[in-house]
């Protein structure tokens, strides 16, 4: 009898030690599988059908018709090009400025907490509110930006109608919201760079700028890669900023001439304005393939340009806690 309870408790104990870790990580994977992974795969299936928003249970198989139609649709190429240019214009200056800001914040400072919190404040502002404010700042007739331009003797810009001006204004919203956040990520990485490396560089007579280039930048390489990856993903998904910047009906089409319509907006327009869910799924899947393509290209480029022992990966760093 005593032996039996003893065995049973060993059994339960083993089950606990072996099984508990899986039980603890399971909720994450279950929710991810149900609401992210499965929908992603199902998107591919839907994209091979004609499905309308009003009758979503009726799926009519059309093979690759949606893809052919998308390929021949110039709105798609326009949205793809806009997503690309908006992505570049919003991401590149943002990360460069974040790097500079992080460098400044890395100095020994009075009020460093204040500067850090202030830099992060835009991140607390929702897309909705930020886009509303910037739409007003970029207003054609009484906006502050045009007033400033006139003040220094330049002619005012029609920020909404002009393609490049609109994309610049929308990028400004993205840059404003995310620069401080990225700066804090860089700052955290800069603080983790061992001080000896700077001392060694200083001993070799490196100037501050050289130290920044030769010690700081290589030292935070994984973080830079990480932010590039996340910003690229964010840029391909751009939706709220152009939608609100366009103020209502003009927002979904990305301006009267689709001058700033992104893939995200086109997806929404096809699905929820034209009621073509199959086509919307096609666009979503095209966006996913685009992301995959970007990372394959990036991988290849990195492999071609990497120095032998240069590339340390995000994961290998995070493995050591």
């Amino acid at each position, binding site marked *: 009898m005593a032996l039996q309870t003893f065995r049973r408790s060993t059994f339960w104990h083993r089950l606990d030690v072996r099984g508990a870790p899986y039980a603890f990580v399971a909720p994450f994977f279950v929710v991810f599988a149900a609401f992210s992974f499965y929908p992603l795969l199902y998107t591919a299936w839907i994209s091979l059908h004609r499905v309308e928003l009003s009758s979503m249970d009726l799926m009519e198989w059309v093979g690759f018709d949606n893809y052919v139609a998308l390929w021949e649709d110039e709105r798609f190429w326009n949205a793809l090009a806009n997503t690309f240019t908006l992505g570049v214009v919003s991401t590149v200056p943002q990360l460069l400025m974040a790097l500079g800001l992080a460098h400044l914040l890395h*100095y020994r400072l009075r009020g460093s907490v204040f500067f850090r919190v202030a830099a992060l404040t835009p991140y607390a*502002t929702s897309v909705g509110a930020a886009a509303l404010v910037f739409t007003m700042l970029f207003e054609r007739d009484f906006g502050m930006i045009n007033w400033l331009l006139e003040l220094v003797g330049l002619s005012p810009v029609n920020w909404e109608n002009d393609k490049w001006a609109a994309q610049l204004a929308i990028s400004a919203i993205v840059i404003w919201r995310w620069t401080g956040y990225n700066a804090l990520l860089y700052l955290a990485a800069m603080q*983790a760079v061992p001080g000896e490396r700077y001392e060694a560089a200083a001993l070799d007579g490196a100037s501050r700028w050289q130290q920044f280039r030769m010690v700081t930048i290589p030292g935070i390489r994984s*973080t830079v890669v990480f932010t590039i990856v996340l910003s690229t993903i964010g840029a391909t998904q751009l939706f*709220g900023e152009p939608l609100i910047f366009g103020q*209502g*009906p003009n927002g979904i089409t990305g301006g009267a001439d689709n001058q700033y319509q992104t893939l995200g907006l086109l997806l929404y327009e096809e699905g929820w304005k034209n009621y073509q869910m199959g086509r919307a799924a096609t666009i979503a899947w095209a966006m996913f393939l685009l992301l995959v393509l970007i990372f394959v290209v990036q991988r290849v480029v990195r492999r071609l340009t990497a120095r032998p022992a240069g590339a340390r990966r995000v994961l290998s760093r*995070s493995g050591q806690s």
Partner: protein
Amino acid sequence: MTTDSLQVPAPERRPAAPADRVRRPVRRRLSLRPGAGRQHHAGPVAYALLIIATLASLFPLYWTMVAASSDNSRVSRTPPPFLPGPHLFENLGKAWQDAALGKAMTNSLIVAGVIALSTVLFATLAGFAFAKLRFRGRNVLLMLVIGTMMVPPQLGVVPLFMMMSDLGWGQQLPAVIFPTLVSAVGVFFMRQYLGEALPDELVEAGRVDGAHSLRIFWSIVLPVARPAMAVLFMITFVHAWNDFFWPFIALDMTNPTVPVALTQLSAGYVRDQSLIMAGALLGTLPLLAMFVVFGRQIVGGIMQGAVKG
């Protein structure tokens, strides 16, 4: 002495950490103390640049307040006004009515609150397992978690929309709550934190005393994890409050969250510019208040969760 207490701790493989590591105060990891890097004092140029950056960060918010406190003719004046006007509360009240912000605020509070609570709970559970428990496939699973950060959830909106209407959650809050109950960033964050802050000895001592895993989690891990959980709660709350794409699709104007309700302001329902700004201000105020009180902790948390190297 039973056999099970003998087989659990593996002292040969895990040398005991030095005592100072055990006693290290947990909160230190979240402080803003600068690291060991070589640090110069900032010169006047650095301060000047930082002040410019700060102004750029804060000015749009300040200007929101200026516009929200003016009437329409004052906002559209040239040169634009730089000081607050007298109509702030009047405009806030009107915007609250016109954009149905009362309902939106309640909805956002529920959505962001539930999402933040569940994210913190599940992230702490998973983070603890990844940081301190040994199991087959741990590294592969952790890599999977990080890999999921690369899959934007937006891409699944079409089937998600169908799923939600099948479940009877069309235009209902569960439609925006369920897909974001967990977060990979959160799991990674808690793993980093617990890996440093939770001494192995504490977990092993719990085992020796015969506590089962959930009990160890409850009585040993949770007290240690509390500061990081608070920070993760706030960061997740901010994200959930500001989430836009999926709520915009899943909800309609009769039952919106705050960012969804704000689009109504731009879409021509309200033409008055100062009211639009009042609405934008209202929608941002709860988070701004949180930043004023807990900004330091949120900054520390974001830096703590960063991939370093």
